[in-house]
C-alpha cells in the first residue's frame, strides 16, 4: 500500500464530493416527470449532440478502462493496442446504424433493445433472452468499476474495512457506492449526464498533464518507446500455417466494436439523444475520445519506462492488484501530491458515471422486459419507474457483493465472457432492421448456437483468454471468440429463418 498522503486525499475528497453533489441536484435539470420510465431512465430523450457526446464518453471510458487498458499494454506491448482500431471502427458504425435504431425506439416508445426485438418479432421469449443477456453481461462490467475504484483507493493509501455479515468490505468502496446509489435513485440518467461533463474536464486535465509532464521527465516519446523491448512494440510475427496474432488483433477490434453498442448502457446513452441528427453529429466528434484513449494506453509504456514495478514502495500494490496497479503507481511517482488527488478523482468519478448508467440500463431492461412483461403487465407508469429505481439499487448491491465474495480475477473472467455473450444479440437487435425475412425461430436458434459455442470456446481456455484458435482445414485461425461465435450465430439465424419461413406464413414485421 502507498503511504498516507493528506494533501492528495483532501484534493480528492473535495472534487469527489463536489461532483457527486451535482448528481443529486440534477433532478432540477431539463425538468421532467421523473415518474415516467423514459424520463428517469432516458433523461426524457432530450439530450442534444454535445450532451450525448459527454454521456457516451462517460459510458465508454470507465475507471476500469483507465487502469486495465494501460495494464494490457504494460504486460503485452503493442498487441494490447487493439482498443484503438476498435474505436476507429465503432464510430462509423454508430453513424450508419444507430440513427435507425433511435427512430424505431422513439416512434414506439421503446426504452431497451429487448423492447425493440419484441416489437419487431412479436416473440416474448426472444425479447426475454435478449434482456437477460444484457443484464447478465452488465453485472460483471459494473463490478469491474469497483475493482478500478479499489485500485485508486489503494493508490492513495486509504485502507479501512468494515465487517458486514461476517465479510470484510472496503469502507471507502462502500461509501462511494452508497453515493452512487443515492444519486442514481434520485435523479436517474440526468445525474450521470451532468456529472459526465465535469468528469471529462478532470480526465482531459489529467491526460494532458500525463502526455506533457511524463514524457518530459522520461526524456521524450522516443525514450519511452525505446524502453519497450523491440519485439513488444508491434504485433508478434505470423507463424506458418496460421493467420497469426495479427488476425486475432483485428478480430478483437472488430468484435469489441460490434459488441459495444449492444451493451445496454451504451444503447441507453444513444436513446437519450434528442434526434437522429444528434447521434450522427455526435459520432463525428467521438474520435476525440478515441484519441484520448490512445494516449491513455500509452501510459502503460510510460509506466514501463519509469520502471514503477521495481520500486519497493509500490510492491504491495502490484502484489494485490497485479498490472492494473501500474497507472496508480505511475501517477504517485510522477505527480505532486495535490495533482495525484485530481488524477485519482478523475478515475473515481470515471467509475461512478458509467456505474450509474449501467445500473440504470439494467434496471430499464428488468422493469420493461421482465417485470412488466411477466410479473405485473398492468402496472402504472409510476409503479414501473419505482420498480426500476429499486432494481437499480439491487444491481449495485449485487456488484458490490460480487467483488467482495469473489477474487478480482474471476470478475475479469466474467467480463470476458459477458462480452462474448453480448455480441450474440446482434442478429436479433440489428440484422432485422436490414433483412426483413428474418424470424424469431431463426433468431432463437442462432442465439442459442452462438451462446453455446462462445461459452465453450471461452471454457476451453479456462476463461483466461478471449481468443480461441480455430482449425480451418489445417490453417490455424486465432479469432476473438465473440466474432467466431457471431459468425456461427448469423449463419444459423439465416438458414433456420429461411427454413422456418418456407414452412409457415411469415409474421409481418411491425416497425417501419
Amino acid at each position: 500500500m502507498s503511504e498516507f498522503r493528506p494533501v492528495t486525499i483532501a484534493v480528492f475528497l473535495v472534487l469527489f464530493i463536489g461532483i457527486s453533489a451535482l448528481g443529486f441536484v440534477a433532478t432540477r435539470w431539463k425538468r421532467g416527470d421523473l415518474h415516467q420510465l423514459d424520463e428517469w431512465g432516458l433523461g426524457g430523450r432530450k439530450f442534444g449532440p454535445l450532451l450525448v457526446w459527454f454521456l457516451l464518453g462517460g459510458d465508454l471510458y470507465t475507471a476500469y478502462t483507465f487502469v486495465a487498458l494501460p495494464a494490457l499494454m504494460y504486460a503485452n506491448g503493442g498487441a494490447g493496442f487493439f482498443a484503438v482500431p476498435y474505436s476507429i471502427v465503432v464510430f462509423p458504425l454508430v453513424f450508419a446504424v444507430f440513427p435507425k435504431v433511435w427512430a424505431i425506439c422513439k416512434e414506439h416508445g421503446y426504452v431497451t433493445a429487448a423492447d425493440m426485438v419484441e416489437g419487431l418479432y412479436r416473440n416474448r421469449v426472444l425479447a426475454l433472452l435478449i434482456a437477460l443477456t444484457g443484464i447478465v453481461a452488465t453485472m460483471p462490467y459494473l463490478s469491474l468499476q469497483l475493482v478500478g475504484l479499489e485500485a485508486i483507493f489503494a493508490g492513495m493509501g486509504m485502507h479501512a474495512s468494515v465487517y458486514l455479515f461476517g465479510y470484510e468490505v472496503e469502507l471507502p468502496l462502500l461509501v462511494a457506492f452508497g453515493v452512487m446509489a443515492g444519486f442514481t435513485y434520485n435523479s436517474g440518467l440526468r445525474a450521470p449526464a451532468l456529472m459526465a461533463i465535469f468528469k471529462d474536464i478532470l480526465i482531459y486535465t489529467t491526460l494532458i498533464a500525463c502526455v506533457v509532464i511524463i514524457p518530459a521527465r522520461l526524456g521524450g516519446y522516443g525514450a519511452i518507446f525505446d524502453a519497450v523491448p523491440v519485439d513488444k512494440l508491434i504485433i508478434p510475427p505470423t507463424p506458418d500455417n496460421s493467420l497469426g496474432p495479427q488476425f486475432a488483433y483485428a478480430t478483437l477490434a472488430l468484435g469489441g466494436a460490434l459488441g459495444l453498442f449492444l451493451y445496454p448502457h451504451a444503447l441507453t446513452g444513444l436513446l437519450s439523444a434528442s434526434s437522429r441528427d444528434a447521434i450522427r453529429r455526435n459520432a463525428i466528434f467521438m474520435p476525440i475520445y478515441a484519441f484520448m484513449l490512445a494516449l491513455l494506453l500509452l501510459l502503460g509504456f510510460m509506466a514501463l519506462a519509469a520502471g514503477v514495478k521495481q520500486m519497493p514502495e509500490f510492491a504491495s500494490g502490484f502484489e494485490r492488484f497485479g498490472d492494473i496497479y501500474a497507472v496508480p503507481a505511475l501517477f504517485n511517482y510522477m505527480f505532486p501530491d495535490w495533482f495525484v488527488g485530481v488524477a485519482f478523482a478523475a478515475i473515481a468519478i470515471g467509475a461512478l458515471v458509467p456505474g450509474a448508467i449501467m445500473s440504470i440500463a439494467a434496471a430499464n431492461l428488468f422493469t420493461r422486459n421482465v417485470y412488466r412483461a411477466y410479473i405485473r403487465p398492468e402496472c402504472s407508469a409510476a409503479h414501473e419507474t419505482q420498480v426500476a429505481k429499486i432494481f437499480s439499487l439491487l444491481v449495485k448491491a449485487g456488484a458490490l457483493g460480487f467483488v467482495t465474495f469473489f477474487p478480482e480475477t474471476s470478475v475479469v473472467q466474467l467480463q470476458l465472457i459477458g462480452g462474448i455473450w453480448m455480441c450474440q444479440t446482434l442478429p436479433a437487435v440489428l440484422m432485422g432492421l436490414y433483412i426483413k425475412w428474418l424470424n424469431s425461430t431463426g433468431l432463437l436458434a442462432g442465439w442459442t448456437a452462438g451462446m453455446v459455442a462462445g461459452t465453450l470456446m471461452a471454457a476451453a481456455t479456462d476463461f483466461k483468454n478471449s481468443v480461441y484458435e480455430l482449425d480451418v482445414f489445417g490453417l490455424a485461425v486465432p479469432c476473438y471468440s465473440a466474432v467466431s461465435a457471431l459468425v456461427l450465430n448469423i449463419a444459423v439465424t439465416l438458414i433456420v429463418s429461411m427454413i422456418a419461413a418456407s414452412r409457415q406464413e411469415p409474421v409481418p414485421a411491425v416497425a417501419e
Partner: protein
Amino acid sequence: MSIKKRPRRKWANWLLLIPCIAALWTPAYNFVEPRFLGIPFYYTWQLAWIWLGAGITWLVYQLAWRGVEDE
C-alpha cells in the same frame, strides 16, 4: 435552411468503410520503422486514422445527411 426529409448522395455512406478497413487490415501497418517523432509507424498509423476516420465521417455527414431532419 430548408428541411429535407431524405438523405442525398446515399453512395457517400460507403466511404465509412475506408477507416474500418484501414484500422482492421493489420498487415498494412504492423511495422516499427519508419518512426515519426520517435513514435513507431504502428502507433503513428493508428493514431492518424482516428482523425482521418473522423474526417471521413464528417465528409459523409456533409455529403449525405446535413440538414436531413427527421420526426
